[in-house]
């Protein structure tokens, strides 16, 4: 059960605001307005947290989510509006997670999974809700395969974009994506795998 926490006071609703207001908030926050930044945080927290949690399989997800917003505060003035703000923020979030992976020695070989990868995920009992089962299965994927599956199939990145982010080839991204899908299929539909 969730416990009630405390939160800084705000004067206006933080959700249900038109996108144009949020663009104003981007400009205000870039100029140092903390309230505007808090509104941005609340508007984008669910999407950013979902991305971080799925990429990391939940490990350190809250800490990394905070890192993303601290980085956002530091980088906001460099946002030029060349892409949608949400697109820019999600790329920044993915970069924060990837940087963490790079400094984690246990994860450095994450894109060089051996053939044993197909054996790493046993079949599981289905809940009858494929999306819910997929969430569970994602957490058990090897790091490299999971990162690419989340970026491509959940977040909609192209292989070349993933290759640029992860400093791998587009071919490796494609191969890892296929592996991830095959592992997930084995997990989600063990009778047919």
């Amino acid at each position, binding site marked *: 059960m*969730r416990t009630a926490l405390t*939160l800084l006071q705000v004067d206006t609703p933080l959700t*249900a605001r038109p996108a144009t207001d949020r663009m104003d908030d981007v400009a205000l926050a870039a100029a140092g307005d903390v309230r505007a930044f808090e509104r941005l945080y609340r508007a984008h*927290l669910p999407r950013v947290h979902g991305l971080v949690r799925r990429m990391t399989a939940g490990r350190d997800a809250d800490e990394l*989510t*905070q890192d993303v917003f601290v980085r956002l505060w530091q980088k906001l003035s460099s946002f030029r509006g060349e892409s949608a703000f949400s697109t820019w923020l999600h790329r920044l979030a993915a970069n924060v997670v990837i940087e963490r992976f790079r400094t984690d020695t246990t994860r450095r070989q994450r894109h060089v999974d051996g053939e044993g990868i197909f054996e790493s995920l046993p079949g599981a009992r289905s809940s*009858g809700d494929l999306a819910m089962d997929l969430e569970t299965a994602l957490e058990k994927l090897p790091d490299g395969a999971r990162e690419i599956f989340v970026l491509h199939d959940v977040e909609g990145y192209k292989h070349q974009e993933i290759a640029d982010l992860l400093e791998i080839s587009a071919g490796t991204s494609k191969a890892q994506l296929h592996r991830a899908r095959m592992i997930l*299929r084995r997990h*989600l539909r063990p009778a047919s795998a």
Partner: protein
Amino acid sequence: MSHPHDHVTEQLSEYLDGELPVSARESVDAHLSGCAECRRLIEDLGSIVAAATTLPDTLPDRDLWAGVAQRIGATRATVTPFTPPVRRRFSFSVLQLAAAGILLMLMSGGLVYLARPHDDRGASGVTRAEPSAAAGDALTVSVANAQYDGAVADLERRLKAGRGELDPETVRVLEQNLGAIDTAIEQCRRALEADPANAYLTNHLVSARQRKIALLRRATALTTGS
């Protein structure tokens, strides 16, 4: 000599994503027409891809703002109790996702059909097995229609119940966008009645429907504060 099945299996993700060159895609098409196992595999992969697009955004179990505020040097004295908003989760059944997966597969196949010459004979002179694919297409779209209508009706019901929570300007923009999408859907439907096999139109119809679902999901999430 290796069995062509292994080679095709490795290509199925690229096939599903529409990233195979036309010649390779035609080779996979030919294999799929005679391989039930690979057809099951690509349907499963399509279901997984479809499910991935429906995964909901998430919230942490504790509010993270205080930590962020501290790290960026923001301090304010006044605090108010925080209760995490009740989050609704939008999900599809396995059957719905399977239908979506099959549709994805058929869509990508349909785009290739448009991209190649409309000749029943390939370079080898072998007649292609088209009729079964066409029959499957019609069935899949029909299933997807029913599931889509149900999902939209459910979301619209939730939105109607919670629209009082939205800013009037948000409601105005939302209705404007939904109206534009509905117009596009209706135009596609009418065009498809005249040309049911047109994969380009099917693609646009599915895309418009996805936009409507996505917009309704976001609007519904706003009404719950998630």
